[in-house]
């Protein structure tokens, strides 16, 4: 049952672009994980850890993350407004522009053109390209919203609107820089100011890329794939406004115990604690939507992804504010604990939700059934187990390294040299590689399943239930 009257070519294009960059980003991640233990793999200069790490983070956050977000946004936007995209050809241009930008970004980072701002490493010509791309996207979002046939805007559209405006503000302000030449610039902010602006950006890039649009998908695709209405509309209103209000206050929790003025740190951590409430508002909304229907966890493979995803989101939003507290950050910051935290969010929450959203959309836009539910289940278990191996190992490693850094002898001298605290990590780093590899296998299964769905015969035997 093909859904007619909408422009789906761009949805499909972005979905498979995201899949491609996911594959690339994870392969780079595995290489990096191996470098941690086998330094010979640092093939200079392009594959040395310092250059490669930013290819990993940018490739996955922006190639995979944004690609998946654009795919889902263009789909949800049309379905929720009940009209075609306002500017389909512009959307198609957006897709080619996006892939060209990500490819150029990766090349420039390999070549060492790097501003050093985390998640904003691109040099200024590419920054301008990113802003142009975002404007193109925003024109379609607002153009379609203005022309829409459905009067009320559903929850997911609120999240899409707030992402669209906030990312624009964040990206432009944090990337204000003065060029030296085509490949090099200096930020306009100095020292502690630069740190504060950067983490206002960095944390909200997490907020408005890894949280807000992913919640848009969750609020749309969970009800669609279960035929269950969202539990509480009022709760979603309260959670939405308090989430976007609170998020922008919290960036400085990345800078606890640094020379940044103490009041900024304290306010940031207070708002981080506050953020537990709106985050869990969405978690509770998701759980209560499933009330009395929990057997769907077994019978509907998409529900597994969505409920495990929102569960990791719930855990993530408890762990985050907790580890930001001064006493905790003093112990955990700069260790692998934080690496575990980030990867629970990205490998657990973000990828689970985008995976399920693509599993919903790709068959829907092609009028086909998913190639194999069994493979989808295999994918689910591989990425779940891979992620758990990865994150739990990193947490244990973080606790051990944090303790070793702090260990001192009765006379007050340090028990361990720095190098001893590094070599103690090698066994964990090997296990982390294994976890990442299991996860990678899951993504290979995912990609195969989606590609085979395109090849399977149209108009499958079982009609879609959703």
């Amino acid at each position, binding site marked *: 049952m093909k859904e007619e009257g909408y422009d789906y070519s761009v949805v499909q294009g972005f979905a498979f672009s995201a899949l491609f960059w996911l594959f690339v980003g994870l392969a780079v991640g595995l290489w990096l994980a191996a*470098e941690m*233990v086998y*330094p010979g793999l*640092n093939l*200079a*200069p392009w594959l*040395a850890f*310092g*250059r490669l*790490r930013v290819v990993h983070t940018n490739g996955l956050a922006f190639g995979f993350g944004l690609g998946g977000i654009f795919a889902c946004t263009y789909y949800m936007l049309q379905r929720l407004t009940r009209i075609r995209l306002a500017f389909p050809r512009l959307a198609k241009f957006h897709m080619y522009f996006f892939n060209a930008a990500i490819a150029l970004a990766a090349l420039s980072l390999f070549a060492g053109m*790097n*501003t*050093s701002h*985390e998640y904003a490493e691109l040099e200024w010509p590419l920054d301008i390209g990113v802003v142009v791309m975002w404007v193109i996207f925003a024109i379609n979002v607002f153009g379609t*919203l203005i022309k829409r046939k459905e009067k*009320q*805007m559903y929850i997911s*559209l609120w999240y899409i*609107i707030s992402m669209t*405006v*906030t990312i624009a*503000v964040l990206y432009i302000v944090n990337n204000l820089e003065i060029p030296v*030449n085509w490949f*090099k610039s*200096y930020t*306009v*902010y*100095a*020292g*502690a*100011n*630069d*740190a*504060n602006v950067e983490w*206002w950006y960095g944390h909200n890039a997490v907020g408005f890329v890894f949280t807000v649009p992913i919640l848009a998908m969750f609020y749309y695709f969970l009800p669609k794939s279960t035929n269950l209405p969202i539990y509480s509309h009022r709760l979603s209103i309260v959670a939405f*406004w308090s989430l*976007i209000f609170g*998020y*922008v206050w919290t960036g400085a929790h990345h800078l606890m*115990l*640094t*020379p940044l*003025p103490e009041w*900024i740190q304290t*306010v*940031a951590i207070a*708002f981080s604690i506050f953020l537990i409430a709106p985050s869990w508002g969405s978690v509770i909304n998701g759980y209560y939507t499933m009330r009395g229907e929990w057997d769907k966890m077994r019978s509907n493979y998409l529900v597994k992804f969505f409920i495990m995803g929102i569960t990791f989101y719930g855990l993530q939003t408890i762990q985050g504010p907790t580890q930001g507290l001064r006493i905790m950050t*003093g112990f955990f910051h*700069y*260790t692998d604990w*934080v690496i575990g935290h980030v990867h629970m969010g990205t490998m657990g929450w973000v990828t689970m939700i985008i995976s399920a959203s693509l599993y919903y959309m790709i068959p829907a836009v092609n009028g086909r059934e998913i190639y194999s539910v069994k493979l989808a289940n295999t994918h689910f278990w591989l990425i779940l187990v891979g992620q758990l191996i990865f994150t739990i190992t990193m947490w244990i490693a973080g606790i051990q390294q944090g303790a070793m*850094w*702090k*260990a*001192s002898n009765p006379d007050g*001298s*340090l028990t361990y040299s*720095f*190098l001893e605290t*590094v070599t103690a990590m090698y066994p964990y780093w090997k296990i982390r590689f294994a976890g990442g590899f299991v996860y990678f296998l899951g993504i290979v299964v995912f990609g195969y399943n989606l590609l085979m769905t395109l090849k399977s015969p149209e108009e499958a035997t079982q009609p879609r239930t959703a």
Partner: protein
Amino acid sequence: MYSRPIVFAIMATVVILVGTIAMMVVPLTLQSTQPVSPLVKPYTAVELEGRDIYIREGCNNCHTQTIRPLRTEVVRYGQYSKPEEFAYDRPFLWGSRRIGPDLQRVGGKYPDSWHYRHMDNPRSMFPKSNMPDYAWLAARQLDTSYSYKKTHVVGYGYTVNEVNKNLADYLVRVTSSAYIAGDARDKVTPPVLKDKLTEMDALVAYLQKLGMDVKNLNKS
């Protein structure tokens, strides 16, 4: 509001601007966020070039440059970081993960020769280290064509002559027979570049400056 996208977008923007103004714009306007001290000197031209190589190679992905006011951290790395020390840091390089040790006070901790040898092959000194080799930095001549423009953009206020003199002086320093790390430098530098400034020279100059303003203060 839920049926008016433009009004909704404006509302959402206002809501995110409240925290943005309080936490990001207001601190920018306060002197106390990034105080300036006459005791902290800007980087010289060659140090700034070294710093740019540090950035290019992504050293900040494994090394932090901020020492927290915690007892064991001060024992390990030296005095905790003071805000004044970062007044000339554009960008800041505090970092977020310590795969390697903090470097904020690495200046003066080891002789230049140590850095040349360590960068050339970290495992020759620490067999179990996982740091990448940076031997190839000694095989690349330092590009100084933008050195003046760089110091100008970051507002250090040097004249062209001062920048050229700094680069020339540093070249004399590392190539003179009196240079105490001369043997180590010669060993890692290809013969054709022995009389030129290399990227490794600049990086060593930068590393040796880190934290020195406070260390010199303690001496005097």
